[in-house]
């Protein structure tokens, strides 16, 4: 059995059983800095091998996906779920953006099965991080409040948030240094990757279980949304992947990115840009429901979806 979900389950169970196990806050930060940099570096290294003319149209389509998903999620939340505008928009923004760790788990899923994929896919991870957040903020401010958006600080928050800087910076360094320049970094950034990911998932299990109490107050609709929306997004992602000509492996990664919801960059940006939204709701949905759903059930499911799309 693969170790990754087991670490998540260990953390989840430990916290539910009220163990005093804690991952120190700065270790959490250190692990997430490592993961973001390592993913960026790897993607950048592969990007150096790529023909930019081939990647550019793909990149634009992928960014379109990041715009479309929150535009679909918003009416579901606002009309169907009867959430107020601010909460509906904030949650939509979380689902438009992506989860780096979910991406890493999907990559591991492919590696374990020897399924090839376009190694520059971390580029799409970077590109998908922010459009969803920006759309979420616009949705929250539509109707009169639009002028009150201070775009300066906001763009700053989005483009210079730690995950963008580390992912994007890693991408640039990997691209500039190339495979040769990165070879001496191999043992640190690549060989340790899966072990660090396991430790991080232990912590995510602790965190998710710690927030699980909020499930009760968040209502059945939100839980349903947090499972249904990823599946819908994954279908869109799978179609997009096929459309832009990715391999089956690459398409699975794109579907997973589409299905994943941000719980690092989006909460930070929304807290400043849409303070009226209750962060408990979006975090419960993204972290307590969608994240475990994706890593435990979602990824194999999206694999099936991709197979259907590819008619295998």
């Amino acid at each position, binding site marked *: 059995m693969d170790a990754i979900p087991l670490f998540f389950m260990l953390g989840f169970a430990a916290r539910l059983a009220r163990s005093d196990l*804690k*991952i120190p*806050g700065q270790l*959490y930060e250190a692990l997430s800095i490592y993961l973001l940099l390592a993913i960026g570096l790897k993607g950048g290294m592969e990007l150096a091998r790529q023909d930019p003319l081939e990647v550019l149209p793909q990149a634009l389509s992928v960014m379109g996906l990041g715009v479309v998903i929150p535009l679909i999620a918003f009416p579901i939340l606002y009309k169907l779920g009867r959430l107020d505008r601010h909460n509906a928009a904030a949650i939509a923004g979380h689902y438009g953006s992506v989860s780096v760790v979910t991406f890493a788990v999907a990559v591991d899923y492919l590696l374990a099965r020897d399924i090839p994929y376009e190694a520059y896919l971390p580029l799409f991870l970077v590109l998908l991080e922010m459009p969803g957040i920006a759309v979420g903020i616009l949705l929250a401010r539509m109707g009169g409040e639009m002028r009150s958006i201070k775009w300066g600080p906001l763009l700053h928050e989005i483009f210079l948030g730690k995950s963008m800087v580390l992912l994007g910076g890693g991408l640039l360094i990997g691209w500039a240094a190339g495979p040769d320049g990165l070879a001496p970094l191999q043992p640190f950034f690549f060989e340790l990757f899966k072990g660090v990911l396991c430790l991080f998932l232990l*912590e995510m299990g*602790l*965190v998710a279980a*710690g927030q699980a*109490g*909020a499930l009760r107050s968040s209502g059945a609709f939100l839980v349903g949304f947090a499972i249904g929306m990823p599946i819908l997004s994954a279908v869109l992602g799978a179609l997009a992947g096929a459309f832009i000509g990715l391999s089956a492996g690459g398409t699975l990664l794109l579907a997973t990115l589409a299905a994943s919801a941000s*719980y*690092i960059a989006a*909460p*930070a940006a929304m*807290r*400043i840009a849409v*303070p*009226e939204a209750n*962060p*408990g709701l979006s*975090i419960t949905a993204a972290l307590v429901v969608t994240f475990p759903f994706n890593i435990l059930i979602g990824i194999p499911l999206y694999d099936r979806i991709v197979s259907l799309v590819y008619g295998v």
Partner: protein
Amino acid sequence: MPNTHPCKLVVIIAEEALESPLAKDVMALGAHGYTVADVRGRGSHGSRSGAWDADKSIRMEILCDEQTSQAITRHVEDKYFRHYAMVAFVADVGVLRREKFVR
């Protein structure tokens, strides 16, 4: 003969997301400095254990004169209290080197 001078100590405990906006605000409102520590806790918004990004809290303390203290407390009341997990209080203390803290 005491070597201290009356001064206000404003303490704000808030979500970490507010650290840099608060820092900017208190300086703009006339404070000459501030001190920040990482904390965790519990309140009306539930438990904030500080274990991960969105769950961190900070404790900012500002030594300042009465007038600045009122400006700061009113400002945080208006701008942040409604939507953020936070509390604030003010204490009377005696500072050394008074000239560092008054306008």
